[in-house]
């Protein structure tokens, strides 16, 4: 499934649409080049989860925890050098904790993908033009991806291909 957005605010809206569908232990793996819009999408999700504090880039800190209707675990694997470090940062423990995980550079190590997840690969098509490729894995992942895209197809300003 694919979504095309033409402004950062639309990507935020796409994130907000996902937020209401999330349940504890859902995992989103985000990929795409620098500046693709991974953090931008998480900002939208956070808004939808009622997170009050600003969503800042987790690149340096690796993990930021934001309280909201559900806790948001915002992670970034950009600075990790090998998959062993996933254990060191308690990556798997965090995924299973009582909140929602959004992982930037979530495609960096194949080991980082849990069985159930939604993968979002963002490509830069133009200055304000982004294509998000969305794929669910596992029963819950597929269900969530499908629900999300159905919700997105009701929104204006973006193009959704189911």
């Amino acid at each position, binding site marked *: 499934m694919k979504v095309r957005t033409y402004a950062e605010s639309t990507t935020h809206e796409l994130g907000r649409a996902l937020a209401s569908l999330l349940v504890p232990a859902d995992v989103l793996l985000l990929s795409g*080049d*620098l*500046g693709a819009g991974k*953090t*931008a999408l998480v900002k939208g999700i956070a808004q939808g989860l009622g997170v009050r*504090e*600003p*969503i*800042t*880039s987790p*690149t*340096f*800190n*690796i*993990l*930021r*925890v934001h309280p909201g209707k559900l806790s948001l675990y915002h992670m970034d694997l950009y*600075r*990790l*050098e090998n998959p062993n*470090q996933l*254990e*060191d*940062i*308690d990556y798997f423990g965090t995924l299973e904790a009582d909140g929602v995980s959004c992982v930037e550079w979530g495609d960096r190590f194949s080991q980082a993908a849990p069985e159930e997840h939604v993968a979002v690969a963002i490509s*830069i098509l133009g*200055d304000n033009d982004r294509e998000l490729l969305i794929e669910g894995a596992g029963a819950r992942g597929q269900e969530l991806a499908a629900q999300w895209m159905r919700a997105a197809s009701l929104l204006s300003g973006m193009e959704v291909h189911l």
Partner: protein
Amino acid sequence: MTIDDLDTAVAIERASFPRPWTRAMFAEDLSRDDRVWIAAETGGRLCGYAGATWHADEAHIMNLAVESAHRQQGLATALLSELLELLVCRGVHRATLEVREHNDAARRLYESAGFRAVGARPGYYTETGEDAVIMWTDDLAAPGASARLEVLGEHAAQALSDVPANELVLAIESSCDETAAAVMRGGTELLSSVVASQVDFHSRFGGVVPEIASRKHTEAIVAVIDEALTEAGVGFSDLDAIAVTYGPGLVGALVVGLAYAKGLALATGLPLVGVNHLEGHIFANMLADERVAPPLVALVVSGGHTSLVHMPEWGVYRTMGETLDDAAGEAFDKVAKFLGLGYPGGPIISKLAEAGNAAAIDFPRAMMHSGDYSFSLSGLKTSVINHIRHERDAGREVDVPDLAASFQQAVIDVQVSKAVKAVKETGVGTFCLAGGVAANRALRQAMTLAMEANGVLVSVPPFALCTDNAAMIAAAGTHRLRRGDRLDLDAEAVPNLRLGE
């Protein structure tokens, strides 16, 4: 309390009360026989006092003040308890005082000592229009009262406990990538400062290379502390306190330093002091230049932080603004990475920028005129990336030095403009540029020029103190130690700890 203390006392008065005592009032009062005055000091300097007058079995508490930097450490409680005890020794049974209606902290203090509100003088404080609440306690000499005084006193003893002036502090820092330890005497004399990544671990400790993760911190910490103590030529038994970073940072990394520090404090009985990592960066400036002292404004810029902080006085911090997305150092790293230039990006970009034209590309100055102190660097990152994409699509070579210089200039312009605005608004005379990005030469220069034009003292630490280290934690920790700040042994790491909270 003597005549020599009066300048400090008058300063504390002014900062504490709408209707401060004057020097003459103190001088006249101190010379009288029917008065009791007691003082609290830290490092030989007055930081609080209390005074009362008495007649027969009745006393009137006239004054009680603590310097704002030393509040909330039980000092006021200590002073009140001590004063009441002295009055009881003089045969006093009842005491009264007046307190400003909305001074909740003071009212709670007096209530805990057994005082009860019995009336008010309406509008007594004409300066604020508030009532004076009249409080009395009637049973100072009653059996229960001495127990109460003792409880008060116990708190107090801790706050007043004499910390030696040349205290030896071991500091531990593990908030993100670096495991570091330092030993410092008297808050300024650095005896050792060890950063794991700088130690030749391979030969000495069998190949431990510290990095991001908590497991690596765990492996490194024992060796780093050992090395710091050995280099300083001291043992655990020589120490007076342990200081540790407890936030902000990566929780898994923070807990390693914190757990070790708590264990050490428990085993040795030494006091444990918690330091905010950003506060540490500000103290790095003080270590490098002894003229640096509050009131000041600091800009802490690193890979993980972009924070503008107002420090009006010792121990008081107010975060004026932060980045809403990427940190400044992160933007440098990511632009360098996108250009395929390597890591860390800061030094590479700044080197290239020297050969480039800073006006070549007009990158956006995000938030420059937002009117607040927030920063945003994600848009700049994206503009740089877009620019490179456009050039490549058009079949043109990217002029890397021009791009580096123009990007760097965009970062600098915003940082300088916000910092100058902050300095003007707060009216401080000192500005600190702190954190890893403070090593950027062009930023240092621009900041120095802009601040000096405004008559502000600028401080930029030497390179070794810009990046994460434990020396700065030792300096900040010693300061907190003297103020009586202690971290509980069951305290937890606070990954999103903010300065001033």
